[in-house]
C-alpha cells in the first residue's frame, strides 16, 4: 500500500444555498503527520472534512487521498473518521464493542462475519483507549469523554492510514485529552496521517507538527513552527480571539520589555504569575482571573 497523503488542490466548495464555504484551498499532507486544523466557527473546518469524505462535492479543484480519488480511497478503507458527538444517534440500540467492531467491516467478507483476528483487534483497540470495562454498555450510557474514546477505538480497529478527527477535545478533561494526544503520537510514529480540527489552541504546538489555518479560504499551512505564529493566528481569528497581554509594569519592576501573550479561542485560560494567586490585575490584563468553574472543565 502506498504511503498515506492528502492533497487538496484549488478546492472551492459551495453549498446548495449558494454559500461558498471554502475558496481556493490548497495544501499537502504526508505520512507520519498530525495536522491541526484551526479556524473560527463557520470557517469551514467541518466542510473540509465533508469534502475529504466525499459528502460534499467541490465545485472546483479536487482532493486526492494517497494518490487516489476520494471515492477510490473510501472504497479501499484508507480513511477513518471520528465524528463530532452531535452527529451520533446515542439512542441506537448498540453496545460499545459492536460500535468498535464496525471499524472492522472493511476487513470482513460480504456477510461481515467477525474472525478471530477481528475480535482480537477490537479487544486491543478497547484496551488501548481504556474502555474495556465498558464494552457491554449501550453507547448512550457513557460520559462525553468515554463516548469520544469509543469512536477513537473504532478508528484504531479500522487500521486506516488516514484518520480524520472533528473536534476530539471538546468536552474532554485534561487527562483524557493527554491520553488522546499520546495515542495520536503513537500512530504518527507508525506512519499514520491525522487531521485534527480543534479550538484548543494551547495544545496545538504540543502535538501537531503541521497546521492548516482556514477562514473560508486558506490563511496559512505548513510546519507548526512556521505557520502557527501570532500573526497568522490573529489573521485567522481577528477580534474573536481572547487576547491577554501581560507586560512591563504589570509584571515586574525592571525594564525587561518582553511580554507574555496568552491567546485563546474557546476556553478561558487560567494564568498564574509570581505566587500561586492570580496575576496582578492591572488595566493591561483585565480579563485574567482564576475562575474555578471554567478552569475545572
Amino acid at each position: 500500500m502506498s504511503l498515506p497523503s492528502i492533497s487538496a488542490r484549488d478546492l472551492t466548495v459551495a453549498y446548495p444555498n449558494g454559500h461558498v464555504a471554502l475558496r481556493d484551498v490548497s495544501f499537502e499532507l504526508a505520512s507520519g503527520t498530525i495536522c491541526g486544523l484551526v479556524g473560527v466557527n463557520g470557517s469551514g473546518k467541518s466542510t473540509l472534512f465533508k469534502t475529504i469524505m466525499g459528502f460534499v462535492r467541490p465545485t472546483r479543484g479536487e482532493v486526492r487521498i494517497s494518490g487516489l480519488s476520494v471515492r477510490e480511497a473510501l472504497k479501499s478503507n484508507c480513511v477513518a473518521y471520528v465524528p463530532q458527538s452531535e452527529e451520533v444517534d446515542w439512542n441506537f440500540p448498540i453496545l460499545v464493542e459492536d460500535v468498535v467492531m464496525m471499524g472492522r467491516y472493511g476487513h470482513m467478507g460480504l456477510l461481515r462475519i467477525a474472525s478471530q483476528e477481528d475480535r482480537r483487534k477490537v479487544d486491543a483497540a478497547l484496551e488501548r483507549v481504556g474502555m474495556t470495562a465498558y464494552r457491554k454498555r449501550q453507547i448512550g450510557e457513557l460520559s462525553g469523554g468515554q463516548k469520544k474514546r469509543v469512536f477513537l477505538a473504532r478508528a484504531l480497529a479500522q487500521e486506516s492510514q488516514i484518520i480524520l478527527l472533528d473536534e476530539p477535545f471538546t468536552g474532554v478533561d485534561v487527562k483524557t485529552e493527554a491520553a488522546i494526544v499520546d495515542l495520536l503520537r503513537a500512530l504518527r510514529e507508525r506512519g499514520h496521517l491525522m487531521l485534527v480540527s480543534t479550538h484548543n489552541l494551547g495544545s496545538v504546538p504540543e502535538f501537531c507538527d503541521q497546521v492548516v489555518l482556514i477562514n473560508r479560504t486558506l490563511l496559512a499551512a505548513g510546519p507548526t513552527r512556521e505557520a502557527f505564529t501570532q500573526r497568522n493566528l490573529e489573521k485567522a481569528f481577528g477580534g474573536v480571539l481572547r487576547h491577554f497581554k501581560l507586560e512591563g509594569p504589570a509584571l515586574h519592576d525592571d525594564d525587561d520589555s518582553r511580554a507574555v501573550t496568552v491567546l485563546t479561542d474557546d476556553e478561558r485560560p487560567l494564568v498564574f504569575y509570581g505566587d500561586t494567586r492570580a496575576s496582578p490585575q492591572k488595566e493591561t490584563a483585565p480579563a485574567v482571573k482564576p475562575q474555578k468553574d471554567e478552569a475545572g472543565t
Partner: protein
Amino acid sequence: MSELLVPFGYDYMVKAMWVSGLVGATCAFLSAYLMLKGWSLMGDALAHAIVPGVAGAYLLHIPFAAGAFFAGFLAALGMWFVRQTSKLREDAVIGIVFTTFFAAGLLMVSIYPTAVNIQSIVLGNILGISDGDALQVVIIAAISLAILGLKWKDLMVVFFDESHARTVGLNPTALKLLFFTLLSACTVAALQTVGACLVIAMVVTPGATAYLLTDRFGRLLVLSVAIGATTSIVGAYLSFFLDGATGGIIVTLQTLLFLAAFVFAPKHGLLASRRSAKLESAA
C-alpha cells in the same frame, strides 16, 4: 383437544397461517430499521400511497400488485428525496408525500370509475387469498428476508453512521435504495394479507417491542422477527375460531406483547425504572 387442531385440517387455514407468518416476519424485520430513523409511519403512508398505482393498473390492464408496488416505490423514493434535500422533518415529509399520492389516487378513481372496489384491495383478506396471490406474497417475503439476512449488518451501519459506512467502502445510497425497494414490496404483500390499516402496526409494533427488550441490534432483529412471525401465525390460527378479522387479531396480539414489554422489560420497562428509582432513594 382435537377441536384445537381443526384449523390444521383446512388447506386454506394452513396456507393463511404460514403466509401471514412470512409477511409478519418480513414486516417485523423492516420495522426494526424504520423505528430507528423516525420513519415508523412510513408503512402507513405507503399503504395509502398505493391507491393511484392500483387505479392506474386497472386502467392499463396490468396486475394490481405491479401498479401498487410501483406507486409505493415512487412514494418511498419521494419521501427519501424530499428528506435529503430539504430540512423538513420525517413526519412532515411522510405526511406531504402520502396525502399527495392518496389524493391523486382518489382523483383517478373518481374520474375513471373502476370496477374494482379500492376498499376491498386496501382491506386485504388472508383467509380468502387465492393460490396465485399467496405464491406472489410468499416469493416477495422470502426474497426480502433472504436479502435482509445477508445485508442486515451493512444496513445497520448505514442507519447508525453514514459517514463511517462510507469509510468502510459501503455505498449508503445504494443500500437505502435497496431498503426502500424491499419496504415497498413488503407493504404491497402485507396489504393483501392484513390490509392497509394494519400494515402500519406490522411495521411498527414488533420493532418497538423488541427495542424495549434489548440494547443489541442483532438481538433486536431476532426478537422483532420472532414477535412478528409468532403473532401472525397465532393470529391467523385464532381467526378461525373468532371468524375472520385476521389482521385485527394479529395486531391485538402484537399490542398485548408490547404492553407486556412496556411494563415488565428488564431494563427499559416501567417496573424496572420504578425499581431503580426506589433503589436510588433508598441509597
